């Protein structure tokens, strides 16, 4: 859509009230076409989705319908009842809600509107929340969890009876998670309170806008969609890939080789935003930059595990333009304003074209100026991936993930929430739930099983009738059986499950933390990582090298480590798997030597070597190489389907190879490839067709093998834990007591074992398997791949390692090896004891 200023002005005059026109004019601005179009659509009674790049004035656009309507509303006369909330604004981040309050307050004041705007988040004091219910503001800025709480209150209907608009910010990021599922159910509830309710979705560019359009409106009748307004354009970003003078490493994620070149770019620009994919990369890059920071430029670190106070300080400094560079993870992905960033550096591969576009949008928050960005691949495969992403960004390709059906655990939480608000009729609630797009395909038997689950646990053994949380009364309504249930519900609302983590606290070296309670808290770190440390190990956190002193209760004690090398690397893995779209682009590039010319010479050479020594896979083929090395035999496959799918594939193949007598020992998976090693010569076995590769990679591995492996997998246990907490089977918090992560972990694992052996078809296990298939296991993607490669497997039996195999072979030993039973480790420990004691 191109802007047509004159038409826009004429339209503005029709739709914008006088004070608004004056306000724009006083500032020498004119309303943008999409702002007016959105206003006109809303005024015509339609819900609407606005897709626009950052800096397009999205927020103001989203609020114009509310502000103009509120401006024209007659004031409340004395004695007249207080009005309910007029507009609800929902954002994924607390900070964003606070930011908007500031940004919106200014025009409201300048235009001279008497509109009240307030935020309500987890940080809002209780007395203010209470007051907000008695005297609601016109515009309430809040989060999905707070909405869930509000609709579970007995006075919800009254609070929302005057609601006109719901504005949903950063919709693209909300809809992909369980938070989005919960929010969609909350919206359905609001629509049942106020049938004429209109929604306004604000989103960055996505692959399938229609999914979001359906999400915004009732799916009764099915397929209904919000209107769509797309703002294209903005200046084309200037993106380049760092063409390093240095040797680009074969493997690894640090991009350490490029530190001096990155530092020079920081010096050349006003403010640089450096994005990385994981916290550990952020720590490492920050450390490396300070190592070369001879000019002591103010360079800061920001990631989600750091202490909140520390993060706020960094954010404030950033807002005041006091920093020259900031190293950040995805905590900064969303739309907070970050001062005058004039360069975005992306270290490591972006993993998705849309994600790259959104991150680059951070620079130059004004839409009409080009963003400037540099991509720093950390290894050679990432060079290919960066190149593919860069081409995609120019082409405007989008690869945001498709939306999945709503989780049954989330539905269970919502059902209990509804009962806490008011008694419900199952027929009516079922119809209401199905108006939410993620639940449009929900069938009645499943819904009834969820209600049964909420009531008594839904077990085949009907033992808990007398303990029911909700009960069906004679009038056909389900009611909460006890006010305590509602109290517990309120403490456990939401779908965000924290990974068990411990506070990291400073103490003096060697003091074990017993004498004093130690110094300040640096942040939180996952328990799973800390468990692998022993006293005296060093690791990197909060921009420092720390020495592990010990754990006590919920705290991990650390001291400053002498020297600057951390002994224990932390492999967090890529948080996001390589997108299907980018994976395909990389395969296409490998298959097209013409395109290698755009690659750095050393990388193109690498591919030429591969063509010479082995072969490069055709775009739809799966290349499998086998070769001996040391006293082991290796199989390396190159599916390019992302780490999660490769991990699942590795688990399943190892099982099959074991049955075939190949005696596999372990495997590692990256985003690009999978390597399995064994004692038997797999290449020979495949040549003799015992088994054939076609049989080994047959789709039937997703049947019994998957089931058998899943049953015992920690992946499923972790997924079950999330489902158990979200569904309310197990409480996150109980009045008066906080459960530590470990207590919850232990009990959900035990519950899982018992439930699986006694009632494998229980609804919560169904929900768990469904989650795992799209989440940690990525079975759906693996299934697509196995079907794609049928009859297209290319086997190269080599005498030695190929150039393409080098990167993944280097990962062996750096990444956790899968497929080894824990008992083997116990055996090793026990043997050590036996040796030491001289008993064996």
């Amino acid at each position, binding site marked *: 859509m191109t802007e047509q200023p004159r038409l826009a002005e004429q339209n503005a005059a029709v739709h914008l009230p006088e004070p608004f026109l004056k306000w724009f004019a006083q500032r020498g601005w004119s309303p943008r076409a999409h702002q007016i179009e959105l206003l006109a659509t809303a005024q015509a009674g339609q819900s609407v989705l606005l897709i626009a790049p950052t800096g397009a004035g999205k927020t103001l656009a989203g609020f114009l319908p509310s502000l103009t309507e509120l401006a024209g509303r007659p004031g409340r006369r004395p004695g007249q009842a207080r009005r309910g909330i007029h507009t609800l604004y929902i954002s994924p981040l607390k900070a964003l809600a606070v930011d908007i309050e500031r940004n919106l307050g200014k025009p409201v004041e300048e235009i001279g509107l008497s509109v009240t705007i307030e935020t309500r988040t987890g940080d809002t004091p209780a007395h203010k929340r209470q007051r907000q219910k008695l005297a609601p503001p016109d515009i309430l800025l809040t989060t999905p969890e707070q909405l869930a709480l509000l609709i579970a209150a007995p006075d919800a209907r009254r609070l929302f009876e005057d609601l006109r608009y719901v504005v949903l910010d950063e919709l693209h990021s909300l809809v992909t998670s369980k938070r989005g599922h919960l929010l969609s159910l909350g919206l359905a509830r609001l629509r049942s309170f106020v049938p004429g309710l209109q929604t306004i979705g604000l989103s960055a560019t996505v692959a399938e806008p229609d999914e979001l359009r359906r999400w915004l409106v009732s799916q009764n009748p099915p397929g209904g969609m919000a209107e769509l307004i797309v703002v294209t354009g903005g200046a084309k970003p200037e993106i380049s890939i760092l063409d390093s003078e240095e040797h680009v490493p074969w493997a690894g994620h640090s991009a350490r080789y490029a530190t001096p070149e990155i530092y020079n770019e920081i010096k050349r620009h006003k403010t640089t935003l450096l994005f990385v994919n994981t916290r550990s990369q952020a720590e490492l890059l920050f450390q490396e930059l300070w190592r070369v920071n001879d000019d002591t430029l103010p360079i800061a670190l920001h990631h989600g595990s750091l202490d909140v106070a520390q993060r706020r300080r960094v954010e404030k400094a950033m807002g005041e333009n006091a920093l020259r560079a900031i190293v950040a993870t995805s905590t900064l992905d969303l739309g907070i304003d970050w001062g005058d960033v004039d360069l975005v550096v992306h270290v490591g591969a972006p993993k998705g074209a849309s994600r790259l576009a959104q991150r680059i949008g951070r620079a130059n928050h004004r839409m009409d100026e080009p963003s400037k960005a540099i991509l720093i691949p950390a290894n050679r495969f990432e060079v290919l991936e960066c190149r593919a992403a860069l081409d995609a960004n120019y082409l405007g390709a989008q690869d945001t993930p498709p939306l999945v059906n709503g989780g049954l655990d989330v539905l269970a939480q919502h059902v209990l929430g509804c009962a806490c608000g008011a008694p419900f009729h199952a027929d009516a609630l079922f119809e209401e739930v199905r108006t939410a797009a993620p639940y449009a395909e929900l069938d009645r038997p499943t819904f009834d099983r969820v209600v049964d689950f909420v009531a008594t646990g839904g077990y085949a053994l009907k033992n808990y009738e007398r303990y029911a949380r909700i009960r069906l009364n004679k009038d056909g309504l389900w009611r909460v059986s006890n006010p305590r249930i509602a109290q517990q519900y309120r403490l456990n609302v939401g779908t965000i499950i924290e990974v068990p983590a411990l506070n990291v606290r400073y103490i003096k070296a060697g003091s074990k933390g017993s004498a004093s309670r130690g110094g300040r808290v640096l942040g939180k770190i996952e328990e799973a990582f800390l468990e692998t440390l022993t006293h005296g190990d060093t690791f990197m956190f909060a921009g420092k090298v720390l020495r592990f002193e010990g754990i006590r209760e919920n705290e991990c004690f650390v001291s400053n480590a002498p020297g600057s090398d951390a002994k224990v690397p932390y492999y967090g893995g890529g948080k996001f798997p390589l997108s299907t779209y980018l994976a395909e682009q990389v395969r296409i590039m490998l298959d097209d030597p013409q395109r290698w010319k755009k690659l750095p010479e050393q990388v193109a050479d690498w591919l030429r070597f591969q063509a010479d020594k082995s072969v490069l896979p055709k775009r739809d083929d799966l290349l499998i190489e086998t070769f001996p090395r040391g006293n082991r035999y290796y199989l390396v496959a190159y599916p390019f389907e992302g780490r999660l799918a490769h991990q699942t594939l590795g688990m399943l193949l190892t099982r099959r190879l074991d049955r075939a007598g190949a005696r596999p020992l372990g495997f590692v998976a990256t985003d690009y490839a999978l390597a399995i090693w064994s004692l038997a010569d797999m290449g020979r076995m495949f040549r003799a067709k015992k088994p054939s590769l076609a049989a080994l990679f047959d789709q039937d591995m997703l049947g019994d093998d998957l089931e058998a492996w899943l049953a015992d997998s920690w992946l499923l246990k972790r997924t079950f834990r999330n489902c158990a907490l979200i569904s309310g089977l197990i409480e996150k918090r109980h009045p008066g007591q906080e459960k530590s992560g470990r207590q919850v972990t232990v009990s959900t694992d035990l519950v899982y074992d*018992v439930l699986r052996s006694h009632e494998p078809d229980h609804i919560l296990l169904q929900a768990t398997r469904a989650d795992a298939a799209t989440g940690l296991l990525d079975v759906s993607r693996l299934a697509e791949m196995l079907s794609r490669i049928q009859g297209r497997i290319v086997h190269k039996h080599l005498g030695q390692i190929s150039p393409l195999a080098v990167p993944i072979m280097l990962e062996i030993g750096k990444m956790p090896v899968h497929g080894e039973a824990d008992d083997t480790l116990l055996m090793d420990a026990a043997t050590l004891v036996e040796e030491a004691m001289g008993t064996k």
Partner: protein
Amino acid sequence: MTFALAMTALLADPIDIAGERAICDRRGVLYFPELRLVTVSDLHLEKGSSLARRGTLIPPYDTGATLLRLQAVIADYQPAIVISLGDSFHDGGGAARMHSSFRERLEALMAGRDWFWVAGNHDPDAPADLPGETVRELAIGSLVFRHEPSAVRVEGEISGHLHPCARIVQQGRSVRRRCFAGDGGRMIMPAFGAYTGSLNVLDRAYAGLFRRETLMAYMLGTERIFAISHAMLRPG
């Protein structure tokens, strides 16, 4: 002795507790061959329904699962004496709440043996309407069986209550398992119940109970017991 038991006995070297020979079974029970005695601790039967009463509706199958495992152990050893070392039921009303089918299974297990319910902190009184003898503690030979380990050192004391587990770190990976904890003088049993959590033997709750230098954790593996010395154990 069945074949399966013979294998178990082979894999688990007998240990010595105050002069009595004992086998730590990987399923979490202690067997004294000379006494034909099996002891098991912290069954926590009906923990599921106990939590359900307070609104946490976890699956009601824990009693069944626990009894099934106990049944297998008893079938293997055919003991003359069984001692349930306390916290046999998760709360005082547990035995009364138990489903009739579970009660029948439990009674069948008890038939023809001397069965002792040692009183625990969760179940200080005799379980309702069940056979067996309820005792505060029990002395047999040089051994004494009680629920809570006593603060002063007692040679030959077998107790439970603390739900011991141990953790080791090998090759950058951490393994945590329930365990028997013993120093040759006294022994603390792992919890047997399906829903019972566990507490690391290095936790402060165990302070002063063991002679550190001879403390061993007999960690429960899938196929066998792993005897791990104090030096290899990690807290947490």
